[in-house]
């Protein structure tokens, strides 16, 4: 295969495409979509300011509390806000459907609330126009539309015989056209990536991790463009007519972007069903009650606990203990309820992960899913990033509750006769300040990639497969 000839054919294809008016119309449409997606991405990301303001307000409100009983502070609680990743401007992922703020308090694991979907009409279900969404669903259509007749029309017009008789080999023609089409696909993708780069440069939160992620996202989409170009040329070569090739490619697009993803979701829900929110809560409640109610002094479990504590310390009443027994009970209760919640929550997550696993394995046969999953993971807007936020919030909530219990155990005593501002059972407000604020950390790139290892492998395999298909096609293709 002569590289010079391959590039000549690629360049010729590029020139030929840009001699038509259609390509400019497509560029105009994509340009409008790009402007809107950039606007909506930046607007979306701007919510970070709103969130950080509210996180700050929640903190001020927490620290503004006067000297108080720590258990009252544990119920006063605070908020954890999920910070949007700088790359979420590019790919919204599932963020609109997941919440972004959670109220953290003792004994209770509240759900993450205030999702965009919860404040929107049903139209959001049709998907938002993010830059990633355009590259994932509109770009394949453009590639198919530009390239469907790349080979078959030459055969229909008899030009293919002329190309071959001029000395070009099948391999040179097919790879040349594939590269030419890939250049066009890259031309369409490039503005999206460059604008994202520009947005990241202007974002002060962009770190080395963000640049690595951006590089990998760019590579992912460029590989996707190459795979689609190769597949388009493969289909065009194997089709009997241009119309036939277009129908095949449109069918492929529907299969790739609509049917397979929907089927994987439906199959996932069928094979790995999840409880309703009510069922989930009820189960936890029932199990917690089974273990005992820390707020009920007559609860048999806690009565037994009290008896054993009194026996160990050889006293007759909890007031004689060297620590606050109420705080101790709350601490034990918190530990039990958190353990039960975590057990059920982990089971629920496992079911969701099993559903997602099906989707991930389907990425082996569907490069669209591979790109979608990888893109969301790299932009920190995938399910695992959301779960990680939930986990961070729960860890913080548990630590906050236990810290308040610890303060109660240490500093609150029924035997105290005086306290701050005339209140006996209170702890200094300095303690509230001493407890660190919640700070959302993004999932590390290593973990994101590990979660999407199947998608990464799928993309690599598809690249080799698509090249292999072209090589194979070059051996069996017919000019007549």
């Amino acid at each position, binding site marked *: 295969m002569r590289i010079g000839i391959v590039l000549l054919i690629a360049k010729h294809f590029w020139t030929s495409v840009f001699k038509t008016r259609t390509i400019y119309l497509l560029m105009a449409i994509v340009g409008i979509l790009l402007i809107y997606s950039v606007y909506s991405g930046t607007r979306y990301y701007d919510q970070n300011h709103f969130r950080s303001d509210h996180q700050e307000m929640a903190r001020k409100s927490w620290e503004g509390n006067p000297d108080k009983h720590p258990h009252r502070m544990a119920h006063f609680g605070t908020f954890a806000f999920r910070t949007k990743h700088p790359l979420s401007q590019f790919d919204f992922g599932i963020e609109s459907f997941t919440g972004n703020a959670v109220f953290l308090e003792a004994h209770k694991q509240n759900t993450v609330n205030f999702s965009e979907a919860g404040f929107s009409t049903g139209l959001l279900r049709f998907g938002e126009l993010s830059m990633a969404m355009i590259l994932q669903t509109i770009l394949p259509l453009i590639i198919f539309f530009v390239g469907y007749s790349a080979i078959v029309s030459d055969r229909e017009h*008899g030009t293919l015989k*002329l190309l071959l008789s*001029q*000395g*070009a080999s099948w391999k040179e023609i097919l790879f040349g056209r594939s590269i030419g089409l890939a250049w066009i696909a890259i031309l369409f993708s490039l503005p999206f990536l460059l604008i994202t780069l520009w947005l990241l440069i202007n974002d002060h939160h962009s770190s080395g991790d963000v640049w690595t992620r951006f590089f990998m996202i760019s590579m992912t989409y460029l590989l996707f463009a190459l795979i689609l170009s190769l597949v388009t040329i493969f289909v065009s070569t194997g089709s009997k007519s241009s119309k036939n090739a277009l129908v095949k490619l449109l069918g492929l697009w529907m299969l790739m972007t609509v049917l397979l993803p929907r089927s994987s979701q439906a199959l996932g829900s069928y094979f790995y069903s999840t409880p309703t929110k009510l069922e989930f809560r009820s189960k936890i409640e029932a199990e917690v009650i089974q273990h005992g109610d820390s707020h009920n002094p007559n609860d048999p479990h806690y009565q037994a606990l009290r008896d054993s504590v009194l026996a160990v310390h050889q006293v007759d009443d909890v007031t004689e203990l060297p620590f606050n027994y109420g705080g101790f009970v709350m601490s034990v209760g918190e530990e039990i309820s958190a353990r039960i919640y975590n057990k059920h929550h982990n089971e629920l997550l496992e079911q969701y992960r099993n559903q997602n696993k099906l989707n991930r394995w389907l990425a082996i046969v569907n490069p669209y899913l591979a790109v979608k999953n990888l893109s969301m993971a790299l932009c920190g807007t995938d399910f695992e990033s959301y779960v990680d936020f939930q986990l961070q919030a729960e860890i913080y909530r548990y630590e906050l509750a236990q810290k308040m219990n610890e303060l109660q155990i240490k500093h609150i005593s029924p035997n105290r006769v005086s306290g701050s501002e005339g209140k006996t059972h209170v702890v200094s407000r300095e303690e509230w300040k001493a407890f660190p604020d919640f700070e959302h950390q993004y999932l590390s790139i290593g973990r994101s990639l590990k979660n999407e290892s199947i998608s990464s492998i799928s993309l690599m395999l598809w690249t080799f497969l698509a090249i292999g298909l072209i090589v194979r096609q070059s051996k069996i293709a017919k000019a007549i």
Partner: protein
Amino acid sequence: MLEAIDLSKMYGNHEALIDLNLTVRTGEVYCLLGQNGAGKTTTINLFLGLINPSRGKALINGKEVNINSDTNQMIAYIPEVVQLYGNMDGIENLNFFSRLSGHTYSKKELVELLEKAGLKKEDHTKKLSSYSKGMRQKVGIAIALSKNAQAIFMDEPTSGLDPKATDEFTTICKELVAEDKCIFMATHDIFNAVNVGSRIGIMNEGKLVHTADTSSINANELQELYLKTI
């Protein structure tokens, strides 16, 4: 220059070409006459190396032709309908196809080639989609010229051409032959075959049934022979 030895091609059970034996020498125009499906285009496709023979062999300058051979470098091909790329002009089309065959020409040389093929200068920069069939044919000839091929295969080159364009085409063919090139032409056009050809072969149902030297036969006799044969 061109030689077919027991050249045969089968498509499934259908024998498209049966034991074709012929030789075309340098400076000759060999015209192959026959009805549709007689095996003319199959013969050209075999010489172009687009398909492999079922039996026998096609030789160009003594070198056997097959899908993987590099005999294409010695030949040029002008299809029945030279479509090329309609959204590009004559110069751009010629530039692309000549570079494809490994020949790079300056714009001046490309213009000269198109002029030699008979295309008027004012048409060189017009889009091919606005060309008549005859004008496209001339770009096809320029492509053949740019390759400097020793043998040129033409598949029904005059079908659909008006008499003037046919005459211009005939003149160009004669000029090419004068430059010691050989032309292998599949055609339905008996009168043009007699006019431009050195030798004529008549094919029927995959077999070469008659050959004649144009110096020994006129158009009417050839027509009579052709009608008897098919």
